[in-house]
């Protein structure tokens, strides 16, 4: 190698070192873990934000579904990852406020994660089959007092499970654990099918999962938990019925990293999300599915999730629903 060549090589080396020293996060693709299966609510939401978010980040986002145990498997994968911002999780109401509130045996707690954003809120709704003859919440509660009312959910410790219990409790059912029967199903689709075929009386879940059944007149909505009416749902809001506290009962999707994520990384995510949620196509397709876009910065997101967790935890303890085994 000539002297000239060596010096060029040194020059290149110097430039590379320099750029490495000032290199900012992110300098390589970011792994994004979706803890639920393809085609589900979390998956669709995650993949809708992925495109505008990827543009904002400037590096590719590698999306992977890691499924199982009601979102726990994927959440654990991120919990154990290095807190360098290259492994992030699409967190969901089920995996990060209902599950920690209900399950003592869960391998993680909220403290194991640092939330960088919540970007989507899903109103919840309760619905019954037309063949049940029930058309209002009052009629449903009257039936509960007669006995024999049951509700379905996508599994123990899932959002629909807690939602139904909370609605029953707010509407004055004295002994929720014994007066209404919980019939868990495997997955959200099966939970709705159980109401369609008469296995269970009612289901409370995200309004977006119920929208097609309500539009097709296969299910009658009794209640939406938001203070504003939900498009397509001809049902009173929780506030109309004087149950303002049910406003807490909403689904959400957010992004979290492992606990110990540096402040500057969290701040960057806040800025990226602010940019990504401005994308008109993103807004349009999310609202068409019945979601409410509600962007929270890292601080606000942590407060929101902790607040919801506390409400759920209190309810679970009051009703004796906590799963210890």
């Amino acid at each position: 190698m000539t002297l000239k060549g060596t010096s060029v090589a040194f020059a290149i080396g110097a430039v590379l070192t320099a750029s490495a020293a000032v290199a900012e996060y992110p300098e390589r693709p970011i792994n994004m873990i979706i803890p639920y299966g393809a085609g589900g609510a979390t998956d669709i939401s995650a993949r809708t934000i992925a495109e505008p978010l990827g543009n904002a980040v400037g590096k590719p986002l590698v999306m992977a579904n890691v499924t199982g145990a009601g979102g726990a498997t994927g959440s654990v994968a991120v919990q154990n990852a290095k807190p360098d911002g290259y492994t992030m999780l699409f967190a969901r109401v089920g995996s990060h406020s209902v599950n920690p509130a209900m399950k003592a045996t869960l391998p993680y707690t909220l403290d194991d994660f640092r939330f960088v954003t919540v970007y989507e809120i899903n109103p919840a709704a309760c619905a019954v089959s037309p063949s049940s003859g029930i058309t209002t919440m009052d009629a449903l509660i009257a039936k509960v007092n007669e006995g024999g009312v049951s509700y379905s959910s996508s599994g123990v410790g899932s959002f629909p499970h807690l939602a139904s219990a909370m609605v029953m409790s707010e509407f004055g059912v004295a002994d929720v654990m014994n007066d209404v029967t919980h019939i868990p199903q495997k997955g959200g689709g099966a939970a709705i099918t159980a109401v369609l075929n008469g296995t269970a009386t009612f289901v409370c879940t995200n309004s977006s999962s119920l929208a097609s059944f309500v539009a097709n007149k296969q299910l009658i909505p009794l209640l939406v938990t938001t203070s504003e009416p939900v498009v397509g749902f001809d049902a009173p809001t929780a506030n109309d019925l004087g149950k303002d506290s049910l406003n807490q009962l909403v689904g959400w999707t957010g992004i979290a990293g492992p606990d110990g994520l540096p402040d500057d990384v969290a701040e960057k995510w806040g800025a990226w999300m602010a940019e990504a949620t401005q994308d008109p196509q993103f807004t349009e397709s999310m609202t068409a599915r019945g979601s409410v876009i509600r962007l929270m910065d890292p601080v606000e997101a942590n407060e929101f999730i902790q607040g919801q967790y506390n409400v759920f935890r209190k309810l679970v303890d009051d009703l004796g629903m906590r799963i210890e085994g």
Partner: protein
Amino acid sequence: MSLADSLMAGLSVVASFEAFFALFAGICIGVVGGAIPGLSATMAVALTLPFTFTLQPITGILLLLGVYKGGIFGGSIPAILIKTPGTPASSATILDGHPMAEKGEAGRALGMALWASCTADVVSNLALILFAGWLASFALSFGPPEFFALILFSLTIIAGVSGESLLRGALSAILGLLLATIGLDLVYGTNRFTFGDPNMMGGLNFIAVLIGLFAIPEIIAMAWNPTAHLGKARSLGHTKVSFADYRRSFRSIIRGSLIGVFLGSIPGIGAAPSAFLSYSEARRKSPNRENFGKGEIEGVAASEAGNNGVAGATLIPLLALGVPGDVITAIIIGAFMIHGLQPGPMMFILNVDIIYGLFIGLIVSSVFLFIVGSVAIKGFRFVSDVPKRILMPAVLVLCIYGVFAVNNNIFDVGVMFAMGWVGYLMMRMHIPAAPFLIAFILGPLLEDNFRQSMLMSGSDPSILLRGPITWFFWAVTIITIVAIARNIRKIPRA
């Protein structure tokens, strides 16, 4: 709107180059995806889903349906050639398909798999188009008690796939039931046999168990005794299926297709039990039942008809009720939602063009499947000519990669190897693997539906006999068990 109007409306959305190209491309992706061990049809559909976001609704949905149908057929290719189901639905195809390949009839088995698949596909599509409404309302009369009775009946399949010894089959089934209890308890939400490991909370990964049970034992056996296969007549997969074969198996194919349509239209069962049920019915009705499990072409035909018969029929609950019937249709329903379509009874009124467009696409898909499948067979059958010492390491690499990719989890690869040793020991002790698999799939369904029934009735067992559907399945279960018992007594004790 008359039928002709509906058809024209359908044609207007589907009659484009993109729509048919998407369907064709989907089938190609599906066949290749299904043919790679570990990369199941479900994964192929899940991987394709993000690409449909930007397509026209009908084009995107046809692409996914193509992948689905192609994948279910594609799974039979490795099942026959290397004893590894490419997709869970093709596990039954191994029973006779692989012995045929061992006899040098790989081409014939593959050909029959394709013909049976396409025939079942046509039957299934016709059932969807003609009887969707009727079958959907029938499916809605299946609550947990009906499911319980149906699955109880399906467990009698174990007797049909146990081979020579029912006792060994039962042992295998018990082992499958035991391992299926790992994971979260459905009703209490508590952990069962997880030993505190979060990886076990979701239960053992099905694909890992499947590959471990079928593919890995072959590889271990090869490593144990690398020269055992030398001198045995293998290779020459150039035999072709004849029309006489097809005609002989035609009854089994139609029966399998109808079983597939029936089980496919009820949400929650899926293609693998259908294939096994079709196989065991074909065996029961066949004059040469002795030959089943040793390379009987009718067994391949029945299995493939059983699993492809499900493919069109799972769209019945999806389109008519808006309910996904299995994991794959749960992904496909996501594609509907992304495009703002709401499957259900109203879709037949509001989106007639899309519904009929899908129907037209589905009919064309059977033809495409035949074309793509024929080409694939020509390409893949030479795999059986590849020397085993080269083939097996390649299969191992594919298996590890595929099982890892299901959940991006190295633990699953460990499960695969552990199950591989279990499978190898079972093979050495002549314990059949198929009953294990059936119990592993059906066991949790049986338990969950039983416990849901008990929750519904407040622990009153009479709910299990609540209507004609349950009576029917209880009756056929008892008849089958009596028949099995009589068969056992007829065989003189050696």
